[in-house]
C-alpha cells in the first residue's frame, strides 16, 4: 500500500512540477520570435510604437524565462529524486536527447538572453537583433529535443533491450519516431497561440483601461492575427496527431472518446461521465456517428474500445478514462472559443477598416470596430493558451498510462522508494510555492498593464534612448 501511495504522490508531484514548468516555455518559445518581429519592424520603419511593444514584452519575456529556468532545474533533479528507474532502464536513449537539449539550446538561450535583455547599449544594434534571434532559435531547438524524447516515450522505436536496459540501434529512428512531427508541430503552434492570445488579451485590457496608444493597437492586431491564422492550422494538426495516436496508442483514443466497446457508428460525445466501475458512461449526450467520421473519415468506421485493453485478471491496461476524456474536451472547447473569438475580431476590425490609409493590411484593420463585449472577452482569454496547452498535455500524458514508455516500462517500475510522508511534504511545499509564484506572475503582468495604460513614465531607459539618438544622428 505504501508503494502505491508513494507512486501516486510522486506522480502528482511530477505532474505539478511539469505543469508549472510548461507554462513558461510555452510563452518564451513563441514570444522570442514575436520580439524578433517587433525588433525587425522597428528597424524597418523606425516607428517608436514597435520599440514600445518590444520594451513592454521583453520584460514579460525576462520574467517568464526566469520562471522557466528555475522550474526546469527542478525537473532535471526530479528524475533522480523520484524516478531513478526511468534513467536506469532507458537512460541510454533519454540521456543523449536530454544532453543535446541542455547543450545546444539551454546555453544558447542563457548566454544570449543576457545580451538581449541588458546589452542594448553595450553591443552594436545588429548584434542585439542577432541575440534576440538566437534566443528565439534556442528556445525552439530546446523544445525540439524535449518533444523528441517525449514522443519517443509514446512511440518508441530504434532500440533493443539487453538485460532489461534499452540500447540505441538507430538514432535516426529514435529522433524521427512516428509521433514526433505531429507533436512538435502541435506544441509549436500551441506556443504561438498562447502568446497571440496573451498579447491580444493584455492589449485589450489596456484598451479597456482607456489606453488608445498606437502600440496598443498594433499589439492587439498582432495578437489577434496570430490567433486567427494559426487556430485553423492547429485544429488540422490536432486532427492529424489524433489519427497518429489512433494508430500507435488506440487505448488513449478510446479514453478520449469515452468508447467502451470496439464498434462502428461511434457518436461524438459532448458530455458524459465515464465510470470505470460499471464500465459505461452516465448522462451521455452525443452527436451520432461523428467520432467515427473524425477518426476514420467514414460515418460507420470502427473505433477501438476500452474493453479491448483489460488483462485476463481484470486489471485495466488502459489509462484512467475520466481525466483523459475531460481534459480532451477542455482542450477542444478552448480551441473552438479561440477560433470564434479571433475570427469574429478580425471580421469586426476589417468591417471598420480605414480605407484612406495605405495598402498595407495591418493599417486597414481598425481596433475601434471591435464591439465592447468582444474586447472584454479577450481579457480572460489572455490565458486561454495555458488552459488548452495544459489540457492537451494531460490528455496525452495521462493517456499514456499505465505505461511510462509505451510497451517498454510502466510508471510503477520507475518510482523511487522514498517514504510517502516525505513525498507528501515536498509536494505540498511545491504546490504552495507554485501557487504563490503563479499569482505573483499574473499580478505583475496586470500591474505592468495598468502602469502602461495609465501612461506613467516607464523607468528611464537609457539604452533605447541611445538607440533613438543614434537613429536621429544617422
Amino acid at each position, binding site marked *: 500500500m505504501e508503494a502505491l501511495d508513494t507512486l501516486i504522490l510522486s506522480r502528482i508531484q511530477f505532474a505539478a512540477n511539469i505543469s508549472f514548468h510548461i507554462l513558461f516555455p510555452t510563452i518564451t518559445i513563441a514570444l522570442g520570435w514575436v520580439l524578433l518581429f517587433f525588433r525587425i519592424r522597428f528597424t524597418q520603419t523606425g516607428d517608436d510604437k514597435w520599440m514600445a511593444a518590444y520594451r513592454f514584452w521583453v520584460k514579460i519575456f525576462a520574467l517568464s524565462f526566469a520562471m522557466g529556468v528555475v522550474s526546469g532545474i527542478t525537473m532535471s533533479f526530479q528524475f*533522480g529524486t523520484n524516478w531513478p528507474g526511468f534513467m536506469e532502464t532507458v537512460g541510454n536513449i533519454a540521456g543523449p536527447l536530454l544532453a543535446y537539449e541542455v547543450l545546444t539550446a539551454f546555453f544558447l538561450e542563457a548566454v544570449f538572453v*543576457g545580451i538581449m535583455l541588458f546589452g542594448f547599449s553595450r553591443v552594436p544594434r545588429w548584434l542585439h537583433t542577432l541575440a534576440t534571434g538566437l534566443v528565439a532559435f534556442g528556445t525552439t531547438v530546446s523544445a525540439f529535443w524535449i518533444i523528441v524524447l517525449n514522443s519517443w516515450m509514446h512511440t518508441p522505436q530504434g532500440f533493443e533491450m539487453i538485460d532489461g536496459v534499452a540500447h540505441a540501434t538507430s538514432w535516426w529512428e529514435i529522433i524521427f519516431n512516428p509521433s514526433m512531427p505531429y507533436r512538435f508541430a502541435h506544441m509549436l503552434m500551441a506556443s504561438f497561440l498562447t502568446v497571440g492570445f496573451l498579447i491580444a488579451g493584455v492589449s485589450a485590457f489596456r484598451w479597456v483601461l482607456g489606453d488608445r496608444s498606437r502600440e496598443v493597437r498594433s499589439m492587439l492586431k498582432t495578437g489577434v492575427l496570430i490567433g486567427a491564422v494559426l487556430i485553423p492550422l492547429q485544429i488540422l494538426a490536432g486532427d492529424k496527431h489524433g489519427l497518429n495516436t489512433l494508430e500507435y496508442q488506440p487505448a488513449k483514443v478510446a479514453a478520449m472518446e469515452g468508447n467502451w466497446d470496439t464498434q462502428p457508428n461511434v457518436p461524438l460525445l459532448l458530455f458524459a461521465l465515464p465510470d470505470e466501475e460499471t464500465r459505461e458512461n452516465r448522462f451521455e449526450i452525443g452527436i451520432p456517428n461523428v467520432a467515427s467520421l473524425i477518426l476514420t473519415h467514414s460515418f460507420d468506421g470502427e473505433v477501438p474500445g476500452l474493453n479491448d485493453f483489460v488483462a485476463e485478471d481484470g486489471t485495466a491496461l488502459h489509462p484512467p478514462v475520466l481525466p483523459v476524456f475531460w481534459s480532451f474536451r477542455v482542450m477542444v472547447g478552448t480551441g473552438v472559443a479561440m477560433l470564434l473569438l479571433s475570427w469574429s475580431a478580425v471580421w469586426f476590425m476589417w468591417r471598420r477598416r480605414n480605407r484612406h490609409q495605405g495598402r498595407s493590411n495591418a493599417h486597414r484593420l481598425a481596433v475601434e470596430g471591435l464591439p465592447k463585449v468582444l474586447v472584454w472577452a479577450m481579457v480572460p482569454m489572455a490565458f486561454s493558451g495555458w488552459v488548452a496547452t495544459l489540457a492537451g498535455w494531460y490528455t496525452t500524458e495521462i493517456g499514456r498510462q499505465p505505461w511510462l514508455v509505451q510497451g517498454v516500462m510502466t510508471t510503477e517500475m520507475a518510482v523511487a522508494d522514498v517514504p510517502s510522508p516525505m513525498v507528501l511534504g515536498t509536494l505540498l511545499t511545491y504546490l504552495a510555492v507554485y501557487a504563490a509564484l503563479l499569482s505573483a506572475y499574473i499580478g505583475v503582468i496586470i500591474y505592468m498593464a495598468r502602469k502602461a495604460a495609465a501612461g506613467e513614465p516607464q523607468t528611464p531607459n537609457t539604452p533605447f534612448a541611445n538607440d533613438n539618438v543614434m537613429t536621429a544622428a544617422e
Partner: protein
Amino acid sequence: MPDFSNPADWLPWAFASLMGLSILIYVVLDGFDLGVGLLFPMADRIEQDRMIGSIGPFWDANETWLVLAVGLLLVAFPTAHGVILSTLYLPVFVMLIGLILRGVAFEFRAKARDHHKALWNRLFFVGSLMTALSQGFMLGLYIMGLEKTLATYAFACLTAVSLAVGYSFIGSTWLIHKTEGALQLKAVTWARRSLWGAVIGVFAVSAATPLVSDRIFGKWFAFPEILWLAPLPLLSVSVLVLLWRLLQRMPMQDDRQNWLPFLMSTALFVMAYLGLAYSFYPYVVPEKLTIYAAAAAPESLWIILVGALCVVPVIIAYSVMAYFIFRGKATDLRYE
C-alpha cells in the same frame, strides 16, 4: 590514467572529467552570485540595485553549469544519479526551492510595486541562503560517504555554514572588482570578515576527508605520492595568507588590482576542489560505485561526447564574450 584504446574505459573517465569541470565552474561562478545574494541584507537599497547590476547579466548562464553538471550525472552515470539524489532527497529539495525563490525574486523585484519590492529582496536573500546552506550540507554528507548518522549530520552542518560563508567571501571579492566608492569599501570589509569561512571550510574538509576512509588516507599519505601532493595544501595556505594581507591594503590607489582578490579566491576554490576530486576518484558514489560501474552504454556516451565536443568550446567562447561585454564596473541594470 585510463586506457585510451578502450572506449569502455576512457569514455566514463572523460565524462567524469567533464562533469567535474562543470561542477567546478558552477561552484566558482554561481558561488559569487549566491554570495552577493547572501550579502544583500547588509547593503542599503541603492547599493542593492548596484549589487544586482553586478550579477544580472551572468546569473542565468552561471546556473546553467549546474544544469550541465547534474545533466551529465544523469545521462552519463544514470545509476549514480538515482542513488545520490534519492539519498539527498530533502537537501536537494531545499536547494531547488532556494534556487526558485532566488531566480524569480531577481526578476520580480525589478517589476513589482514598490511596497512589494522589500518582500522580493528578502526572498532573494532567503533563496540564496537556502541554496548555499543545502549545497554545503550535501557536500558534507557526500564527503561522509552519504552515511546518515548524528556525527555525519553534524559535519554536514559545519560544511553548510562554511560553504555559505565561503560563498559570501567570493561574492565580496567579486563586488570589490565590480563596484566602486562606498559599496566597494563595504565589500572589502565583508571580504575580511568572511575569510574565516573559507579557512574553516578548507581545513575541515581537508582534515575530515582522509579520516573517513582508509583508502583516501592511503592516497594522500603514502610515499612518494605525498611529495608531489604536498604543494597543494602548501599553496592553499600561502594564498590564504596573501589574500589576508592584500585585503588589509584594499582598495588601492586608482583601484589597482581590484580583480586580484577574486582571482585568488577562485584559486582557493579550485585547489580545494582538486583535493576533493583526487580523494574520491574513481568513485562517483563514495566507496560504493565507481564511474565505470555507473556509466551508461559506450555507444550512448559516444553520441553525447560528439555533441559536447562541438558545443562546449562554443559555450566557453561566448561565455567569455558575455563577461567581456559586461566587463568593468557594474551599472544599474536597465531593460525596462
